[in-house]
Each structure stands twice: as structure tokens, then as C-alpha cells.
């Protein structure tokens, strides 16, 4: 029997060694594998290269990993955010290396790694400083720069639900980088809210087939869902509203 279920996040990330390249899903906080990141922080691996769209928010999650001095380099499209003070400080102090990649090239380079493409010509970034030094070629009257795949040793991804074969479905825009990162890493670890019985996920709607997944960890329902249905009551960061119940009662009136 194939069973990719892992008991908890700590077990799932236990084998990540120092020096690993780790893809971390998420766009801002949406789809960030918070429990896996927390487990990685706890676990202690350092000298990491992180591939992720952003470079952490606030003082938790990816930002906390950075704050702990565990990350040597980050490959991302948008490190600067209103609450990216941890990255900002490290960067200004020269204590973290940054490879800045336009978001679509980041996505396509990750996909290319997963799909066995050796390199591809992208029109994005041509003539800008982010394409400096890249091979440029005119094809059918348009300029393209040659972009190479981005691989990782590990991918940490957040899905909504999984099964023991590792099939994964996502929720809304929390899907973002998860499905492509799952294809581009040697070892893909997915946290989900809960596990479905094998066969219960609609085979037409599975976004990440289990072939790309090595481990699935159920971490419990996100706080804005109850029995799988959206109930609200949090802000965009998932923090409880100061007086959600009261406000909601008011709306109901």
C-alpha cells in the first residue's frame, strides 16, 4: 500500500540537511505552508537557499527563518513588502544574497525544471537589468532572453486536501506556486488541512497528481473554514477580527 501520509510537520521536514535549496509556496501569506516552515525553523537546518515569491512577512514564517540567520540566499520576485522588515534589514546589512527574478520567469523556470525543459526563450525582462548577461535572440521579430530551470532539493507546499497517494487540491488563490514547485523538487512535502479517502478527490479536479508528492501532512483546518465551508471572521493575514462576531451580527441586521 502506498501511504505518503506523515504524522506531523516535524517528521516531514526532519530530513532536510544544511545547505539545501528549498522552494516555499505562497504568494504573500496565501498558500504559505506555515506549519511546515515553523517545523523547519524548529528543525535547525541552515545555510539554506530559499526559492519563494516573497521574502517573508512580519516576524513569523519565512521571516522568522530569515531572522534566525538560516538563509544564505533567496530567489524571489518581490522581497519588498510593507511588512518585510526582516528581509530588508538583512539585505541592507549584506547578510543575505538576493536573486531577483521577474515573477513570470520565476514561475516558468520552476515549471521548466519540473517538465524537463533545458532552457527557454522568454520575452519578459529583455532589455532590462534583470536580463543583463543573458543570451538574447530575435525570434519572429521579437526579442527573447534565454532562461534556465530552477530546481530545488525540497518543496514545501500548502494544499487544501490530500490523499495517501499524494494527490492534492488547493483553495482559491492559495494555489499559486504550489503545483509547479511540487514538480521541481527532489522531495515535495505538502501540508493540507485534512486527508481524504483514496478516490474521494475528483480525478478531474486533482491539481497536483501524487507522482509529484513525497509526503503529506494534515495540519488541521484553516481558521476561516468550518467543515470545509468559508465562515470568515479573519483578516487577510488570517488573524481573528477584533470583534468578528459582533460585526457579523450587525451585518446580519
Amino acid at each position: 500500500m502506498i501511504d505518503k501520509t506523515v504524522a506531523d510537520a516535524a517528521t516531514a521536514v526532519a530530513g532536510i540537511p544544511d545547505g539545501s535549496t528549498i522552494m516555499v509556496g505562497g504568494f504573500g501569506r496565501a498558500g504559505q505552508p506555515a506549519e511546515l516552515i515553523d517545523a523547519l525553523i524548529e528543525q535547525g537546518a541552515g545555510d539554506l537557499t530559499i526559492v519563494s515569491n516573497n521574502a517573508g512577512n512580519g516576524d513569523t514564517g519565512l521571516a522568522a527563518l530569515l531572522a534566525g540567520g538560516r538563509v544564505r540566499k533567496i530567489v524571489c520576485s518581490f522581497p519588498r513588502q510593507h511588512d518585510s522588515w526582516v528581509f530588508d534589514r538583512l539585505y541592507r546589512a549584506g547578510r543575505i544574497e538576493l536573486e531577483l527574478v521577474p515573477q513570470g520567469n520565476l514561475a516558468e523556470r520552476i515549471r521548466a525544471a519540473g517538465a524537463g525543459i533545458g532552457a527557454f526563450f522568454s520575452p519578459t525582462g529583455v532589455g532590462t537589468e534583470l536580463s543583463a548577461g543573458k543570451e538574447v535572440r530575435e525570434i519572429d521579430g521579437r526579442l527573447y532572453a534565454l532562461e534556465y530551470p530552477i530546481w530545488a532539493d525540497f518543496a514545501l507546499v500548502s494544499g487544501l486536501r490530500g490523499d495517501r497517494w499524494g494527490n492534492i487540491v488547493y483553495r482559491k488563490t492559495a494555489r499559486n506556486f504550489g503545483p509547479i514547485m511540487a514538480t521541481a523538487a527532489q522531495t515535495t512535502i505538502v501540508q493540507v488541512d485534512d486527508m481524504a479517502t483514496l478516490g474521494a478527490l475528483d480525478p478531474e479536479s486533482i491539481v497536483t497528481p501524487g507522482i509529484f508528492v513525497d509526503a503529506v501532512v494534515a495540519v488541521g483546518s484553516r481558521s476561516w473554514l468550518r467543515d470545509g465551508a468559508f465562515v470568515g471572521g479573519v483578516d487577510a493575514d488570517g488573524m481573528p477580527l477584533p470583534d468578528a462576531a459582533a460585526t457579523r451580527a450587525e451585518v446580519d441586521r
Partner: protein
Amino acid sequence: MTTRITRAQLAARVAMDIPEGSYVNLGIGVPTLVADYLPADQEIILHTENGLLGMGAAPHETQVDPDLLNAGKQPVTELPGAAFFHHADSFGMMRGGHLDVCVLGAFQVSQAGDLANWSTGGADAIPAVGGAMDLAIGAKAVYVMTDLLTKSGESKLVSACTYPLTGMACVTRVYTDHAIFDVRPDGFVVREAFGDNTVALLAALTGLELKG
């Protein structure tokens, strides 16, 4: 006396040029204002590059869904007919030229249609590009929405960008508070001057030769 329309008026003016049935990406910041002026009785489908077509307005504060954000990481809603997809598919959609219109902000736009909107090149600045370079080349029509002049009075329409480029020869049209300019092979053409603004006045403000 120069005429300057407000940001709201400008957003409304951009919205007027977006026909029903268009697939549109509104860049982070000022361009998102355009959404407020799209006619409620018409279907215009908004794309957000983090994986959604058919984006709706912001939710009530008690109904914020942290899994349903726009590219600016603000909470949004989904309309009936919406579809979710992953980042490679979403940027393939843009890069492949499937969007009809993309509206972006700008630091500078050159006569050749070059766009600079992602970095001021400041030595101390934290660099961040996000989807800017993909958006710049990612629609059939790329509209820039901006004040004509910076706060210190310099023209954002320039003969050549001095700020780091976002994309080369990618801008279709520039909507400013003074006038609307088309980018043509031979430079900027004044498509519509607001109020009493004249081509001569606009030429003086920008320091560029402009066609009327």
C-alpha cells in the same frame, strides 16, 4: 491655464476605453482605481496574476478570505464564472498575449514605448520587481496611467528612460492628468487633450515634439 483632471476622473476615463468582454489586468496601486469605474451593467473580466480570472470587488471586512487575494495581496472576491489556476498558467496567459488590456503605473515612458516603473535605481532601495516586467509585455494593449509630471515638475514622458527599464517598446497608450497620448512608431501622439490643454502646451511641459 493648464487643465488637470483628478485621479478619479482619470480612472473613469481609462474605464471608458475598455469595451465589454475585455480581459483586463489592473496593476497594483493607482490602476486598481479603474475597477471602480467599469460600468456595472457590462461584463469585463479582471485577471489577477496570482491565479484568478473573474475577480470581484473587495469583500466586507467580516468576509475577508485569506485564500482569495489580488496581486497587491488585498482581499478580493470571485464572480460567478471565475476560474483559478496556478502561477505558470497565469503568467503563460499574460506572456501569451491573451489579455486585452493591462493598466500600469509608471515612473517614465519613452517615445519608443519603453516603460520604467519598477525601480528608481536608488542604491539603498530594496529591489522588487514582482510581475511588473511580465505585465509590461503581457497584453494586447498596455495602458499606462500616471500624472504627466512628477511632484518636482519633471515630465514622465521622456525621449529615453533614465530609470531602469521594466520593458522595451511595450506601452500602447499613456493616460495622464493632462492628456492621453498614443505611442506610435514615430513617437507620442496626443490622442485627447483635456480641457483647454493644447499640443503646444503639452510639448512645452514634456519638452518633446508631439504630434496632434
